[in-house]
C-alpha cells in the first residue's frame, strides 16, 4: 500500500471508537463521515460536504455529543445512523432527510454513569441494531421505504456499555450466528437474528474493553484496549489467534470480505493490515501481518476499507482535519 490523496474535512475528528463511516456504492466514489463533537462531517460521493447535528438539546440542555455514525446497508435501502448521548437518529443515506428519531430513556435521577447510544450495525437483512450505555441492544425493524421504523426488541445480556456491533460479512457456518455485540468489559455475545433474536453464546471478557469487532465466516475479530487483536471461533467460543498488535488502545477494526484482510487502527499512531486464512492441513484459523503504516503524531480513531477486497483504505485521527487515503502500491 502507499499513501494517496487526503480528503479535507471541515472539522477535525474526535477521539471516539470506530470514528470513520464509509459507504461504497458500486461504480461510484465512496462517501465518508467522521464525528466531531456534536457534528457529523459528511463527504458525499457527489455534491458538497454536509454537516449533521446531534438532536435532542432541550431548552436548558447543551447539544448532546455524538458517539458514532455508520451507514447501514439493507437489501431495500441504505440508512445513515447517528448515535449520541440522547438517542438514535436515522437519515437517508445522503443525510438529506431524517427518517427516524429514538430518544433513550434517561433515568429520572441521573446516576453517576453517563448515558449514550453506541454501536451500530445492519442485521438479518431487515434490522438495525444499536447499543446503549446500559448494555442493552435495541433492535429496530426497518421498512423497505418510509419512516415507519419500529423498535422490535431490546436485547439485555451485556452488563457494560456497548462499544461495537457487527453482522456476519461472509458465510456463517451452521450454529455460528450472524451477529456479534461487544462491550466495555470485553464480553462478546453471539446472536442469531430473526423476528426474535436468539443468544447463541457468550465469550466472557477480562475487564479489558473490546472497542471494535468484526464477524466473517464464523470468525470473530476483536480489538482491545490493551492493543491485542483476538480471533475467536463464533460457534464454539474458543480462541483461534492472539496478536500483540498495537502499543496502545485499539480504536478501529475493519474486514474486507472478499479476501479476509483485516485492518486495525490504534492510539499508537499505527494502522496495520492483516490477512485471515484457514490452514488447509490443520483447519486452524491463521492470521499474518501484511503491512504497517505510521500516521506520525496522530492517534488513529477510525480505519475502514473502501472496497470489498481491501485494496484501498481510509484513516482518521484525533485532531486531524482530513481523511487519509491509502491505495495499492
Amino acid at each position, binding site marked *: 500500500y502507499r499513501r494517496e490523496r487526503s480528503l479535507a474535512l471541515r*472539522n*477535525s475528528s*474526535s*477521539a*471516539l471508537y470506530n470514528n470513520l463511516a464509509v459507504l461504497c456504492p458500486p461504480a461510484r466514489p465512496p462517501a465518508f463521515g467522521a464525528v*466531531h*463533537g456534536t457534528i457529523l462531517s459528511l463527504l458525499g460521493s457527489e455534491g458538497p460536504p454536509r454537516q449533521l447535528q446531534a438532536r435532542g438539546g432541550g431548552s436548558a440542555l447543551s447539544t448532546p*455529543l455524538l458517539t458514532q455514525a455508520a451507514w447501514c446497508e439493507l437489501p431495500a435501502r441504505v440508512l445513515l445512523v447517528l448515535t449520541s448521548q440522547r438517542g438514535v437518529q436515522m437519515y437517508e443515506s445522503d443525510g438529506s432527510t431524517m427518517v427516524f428519531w429514538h430518544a433513550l430513556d434517561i433515568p429520572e435521577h441521573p446516576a453517576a*454513569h*453517563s448515558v449514550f447510544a453506541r454501536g451500530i450495525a445492519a442485521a438479518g437483512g431487515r434490522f438495525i441494531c444499536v447499543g446503549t450505555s446500559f448494555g442493552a441492544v435495541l433492535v429496530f425493524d426497518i421498512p423497505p421505504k418510509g419512516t415507519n421504523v419500529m423498535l422490535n426488541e431490546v436485547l439485555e445480556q451485556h452488563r*457494560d*456499555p456497548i*462499544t461495537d456491533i457487527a453482522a456476519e460479512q461472509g458465510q456463517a457456518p451452521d450454529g455460528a450466528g450472524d451477529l456479534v455485540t461487544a462491550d*466495555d*468489559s470485553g464480553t462478546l455475545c453471539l446472536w442469531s437474528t430473526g423476528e426474535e433474536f436468539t443468544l447463541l453464546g457468550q465469550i466472557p471478557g477480562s*475487564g*479489558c*474493553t473490546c472497542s471494535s469487532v468484526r464477524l466473517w465466516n464464523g470468525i470473530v475479530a476483536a480489538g482491545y*484496549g*490493551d*492493543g*491485542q487483536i483476538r480471533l475467536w*471461533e463464533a460457534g*464454539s467460543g*474458543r*480462541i*483461534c*489467534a*492472539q*496478536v*500483540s*498488535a*498495537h*502499543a*496502545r*488502545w485499539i480504536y478501529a477494526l475493519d474486514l474486507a470480505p472478499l479476501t479476509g484482510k483485516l485492518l486495525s487502527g490504534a492510539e*499508537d*499512531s*499505527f494502522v*496495520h493490515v492483516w490477512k485471515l486464512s484457514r490452514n488447509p492441513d*490443520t*483447519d*486452524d*484459523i*491463521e*492470521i*499474518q*501481518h501484511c503491512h*504497517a503504516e*505510521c500516521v*506520525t*503524531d*496522530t*492517534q488513529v480513531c477510525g480505519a475502514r476499507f473502501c472496497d470489498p477486497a481491501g485494496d484501498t483504505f481510509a484513516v482518521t485521527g*484525533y*485532531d486531524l482535519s482530513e481523511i487519509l487515503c491509502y491505495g495499492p502500491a
Partner: protein
Amino acid sequence: QLYDLMTMAFKYQVLLCPRPRDILLVTFNHLDAIKDFISDSPGILNQVDETFRRLIETYNCLSDGEFQLIRQTLLIFFQDMHIRVSLFLKDKVQNSNGHFVLPISGPVPWGTEVPGLIRIFNHKGVEVKRAEFTTAGNYVTPQREGSFELYGDRVLKLGTNMYSVTRPVETHTSGSSKTLASQAKENIAPNPLAKEELNFLARLLGGLDIQKPAGGDTGFRLNLFTSDEEEEHAAQTRPEELSYKVINIEATQEPGRRAELSRILGELEVEEPRPGSAEKGEDLLALMDGL
C-alpha cells in the same frame, strides 16, 4: 497567556497518558507537588490529603473503559487547540504546527504487551504456532506500575513540574521566536526617551537605600527580562555596537518622601512563613486579618 499555557499543558498530559487510568496518576502527581508546596502548613495539608482520599474513593474503582470515556470527553474539550508553547517547542514535545509529538518508542503501558507476536491456537486451545512481525516502533516492557495509594511512586512523569529546569516561558500565537541578540540589534538606535524614563522612575522611588534584611531572600530586585538566565544571557550576547554607557541615577533625597516610600516598600515585603501554627482556624483568621 497563562490560560493558554495551562490548557495546552493539560491537553498534553491527557493526550499522552499511556493508559486512560493514568489520568488519575497525573492527578496524583499534581497533588503530590501541591503537598510539597504547603508542607509547612498542616492545616492545608490535611485538606489536600482529604481531597486525595476522596479522589481515591471515587475514581480508583472505575474500569478502564470508564476512564477512556472520561479521557475521550476531555479530548473533545481540547480538540483543535494548537497554541504553541515555547517550553514544549524547545523540548521537542510539540511541533511548529502546534500538534504534540507522539513518540513511537519507549515503554508500553502497564498491561499492554510489546507489539510483534502472533500466536495461533488449535481447536483444543493449545498454542501450535508462533510468528513475529516488525514495525518502525521501538517499544520495551515497562518496569513497574505507578502507585494509586495516598503515598507512592507514581512512575509516570506526566503531571510533574514542567519547570524543574528553569527556562523562560511564553506562548506564541503566530510567527517564529527571534533571538534576543537579533532583537537587540533591531533596536540599535538608542531611544532618546529611555534616559528620561529611567530618570522618572528614579524620581518616583526617591533614591531609596533598600536594605536587604540579614537573612532570607525577601525584598525585590528589578529584572527587565523574563528570567534571570535571560538577563545573564543578554548581558553576554549584547552586540558590540551598543554603547556601554552606564547611566548613574542620582535622585534627590527628600526625607519625607523617603519615609513614606520606605513604609510602602516594607508592606510589600514577603513575610517569612509562620513556624508551626497549630489550628487551621487560627491561620484562616490571621489570613483575614492581613487583608
